[in-house]
């Protein structure tokens, strides 16, 4: 019973957290028609920004150069701004690119950021990363920290879904849909497609930054390994799994994928060998899942909100 509760809590926590990423990706891809294969970079930008803003100035063996020792909420806001800034930086030169070119460029930007974090030790101690990331005292209402962070992640997910819904239900969302459907026709009615796509790209990266901050609080550690391309693939699989039609589907897909991984991890293995086999089985199953889903829901058909009845 206790393990079931623990697994449920972990799924709620990380499921909600990664749902924020999937929701953002959904806005960029299913509505904005932009393929971002560098999702993890905005997440990393948020996590590192949070750590750097809240940590103490360097001393002793620290290689990092900046620690601002600010309160957690300043770090949280900084995380959103950092992700947004990275989106402006990467979106400006690339958003004119079509489909797979945009995918490749965003992927390359994410790899560049990753190697920057590894090699420029002044940012975050290189591969060692930043340990003991500050986090607010979560012992409120007598709840355990895990419960509080799970609820915080859930709240962030709800806020993100609400904000995106509001955006998409407005005339703004209608214009975004029109651009994705037919750029030439949208231009013929005066829609500035460069402006709208850029805005969608930048806006949707902000919650990813917030999620990065929360992730850093939960793990109390940020290092380049945590922000590899695997995270990007993970959110893409979750998005495809849940289908891009509704925000709820997006969330359910993410929860299901996190749940699947947590359950496998929770199995008590007799030997190291068995655990290894289970770990590779998890990778293989995830891969097969991805292929199977792509087979029946190819990218082109994905970007449709309402198909012909």
């Amino acid at each position, binding site marked *: 019973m206790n393990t079931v509760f623990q697994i449920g809590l972990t799924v709620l926590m990380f499921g909600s957290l990664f749902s924020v990423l999937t929701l953002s990706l959904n806005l960029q891809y299913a509505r904005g028609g932009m393929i971002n294969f560098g999702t993890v970079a905005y997440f990393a930008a948020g996590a590192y920004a949070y750590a750097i803003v809240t940590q103490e100035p360097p001393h002793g063996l620290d290689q990092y150069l900046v620690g601002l020792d600010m309160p957690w909420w300043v770090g949280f806001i900084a995380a959103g701004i950092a992700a947004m800034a990275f989106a402006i930086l990467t979106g400006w030169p690339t958003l004119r690119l079509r489909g797979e070119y945009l995918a490749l460029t965003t992927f390359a930007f994410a790899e560049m950021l990753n190697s920057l974090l590894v090699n420029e030790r002044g940012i975050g101690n290189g591969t060692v990363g930043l340990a003991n990331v500050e986090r607010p005292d979560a012992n409120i209402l007598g709840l355990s920290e895990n419960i509080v962070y799970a609820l915080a992640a859930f709240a962030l997910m709800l806020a993100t879904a609400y904000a995106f819904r509001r955006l998409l239900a407005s*005339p*703004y969302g209608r214009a975004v*849909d*029109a651009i994705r459907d037919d750029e*030439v026709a949208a*231009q*013929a009615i*005066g829609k500035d*497609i460069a402006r709208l796509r850029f805005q969608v790209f930048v806006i949707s990266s902000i919650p990813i930054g917030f999620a990065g901050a929360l992730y850093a609080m939960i793990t109390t550690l940020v290092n380049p390994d945590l922000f590899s391309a695997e995270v990007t693939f993970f959110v893409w699989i979750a998005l495809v799994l849940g289908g891009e039609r509704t925000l709820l589907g997006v969330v359910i897909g993410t929860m299901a994928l996190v749940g699947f991984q947590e359950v496998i991890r929770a199995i008590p293995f007799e030997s190291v060998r068995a655990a290894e086999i289970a770990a590779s089985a998890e990778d293989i199953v995830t891969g097969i899942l991805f292929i199977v889903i792509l087979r029946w829901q190819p990218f082109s058909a994905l970007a449709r909100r309402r198909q012909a009845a």
Partner: protein
Amino acid sequence: MTRDLLVVDKVTKRFGGLKAVGGDAGLSFSVPEGTFLGLIGPNGAGKSTTFNLISGVLKPTSGAVILDGKDLSVARPSDIASYGLGRTFQTPRAFPSLTVLENVMVGADNEGETLLSVLRGGWRSRERALRAKAGEVLDRVGLTERINDVVANLSGGELRMLEVARQLVRDPRILLLDEPTAGVDPSLQAKLSRILVDLHAEGRTLVVVEHNLHFLLQIADSVVVLQNGELLSKGTPGEIKADEKVIAAYLGADHAA
């Protein structure tokens, strides 16, 4: 003399070696404000390409397009649209993920489409007015019954009318229509003819490409004839009908076919 709203000045367009528009000297014609200009010519004469050059979908190889005194050489299609130019496409374009009504509403220049307005939430009241206006325009083009339909259920002719409606809701100063009657059934054609006559009477400037000369020559007040991308003739419908060159090149070819 009314002033020229649109000036096409020595424009050429080449696709590789093909001189699609303007030949060597360049194509020139102007559209005074309030005119109803017909643009005709055989298949491949460069009519649609001329529309694409005016609306910024294509950029001229040489020469200039001037709208209301503004040189459009560096303007994007969306800028040109916001200067007051509306256009339809020879192959109708629609937004499949929007309903018929939304397809028209999205056409309006809408302050509700800014992020600030989404944050403030003040777009709702304007949305009501826009919905009413879109409804009127759809009524005008005979699509009232299709208002909540998805565009996939529309016929080719209805798609054409939908595109006209999407442009009308923007109140363009000058409207370019590329073969608006193609695939449109006769009752809708009559409706379209009436709409064009009304728009003309309202003082709007129209440029219409049509193969259906019977339809066009009745309602246009001047006509430009293209052949192989070059100006073959221009004049009133009466003059064009009597022009030997036009009869030989266009009507003759048409009759022969």
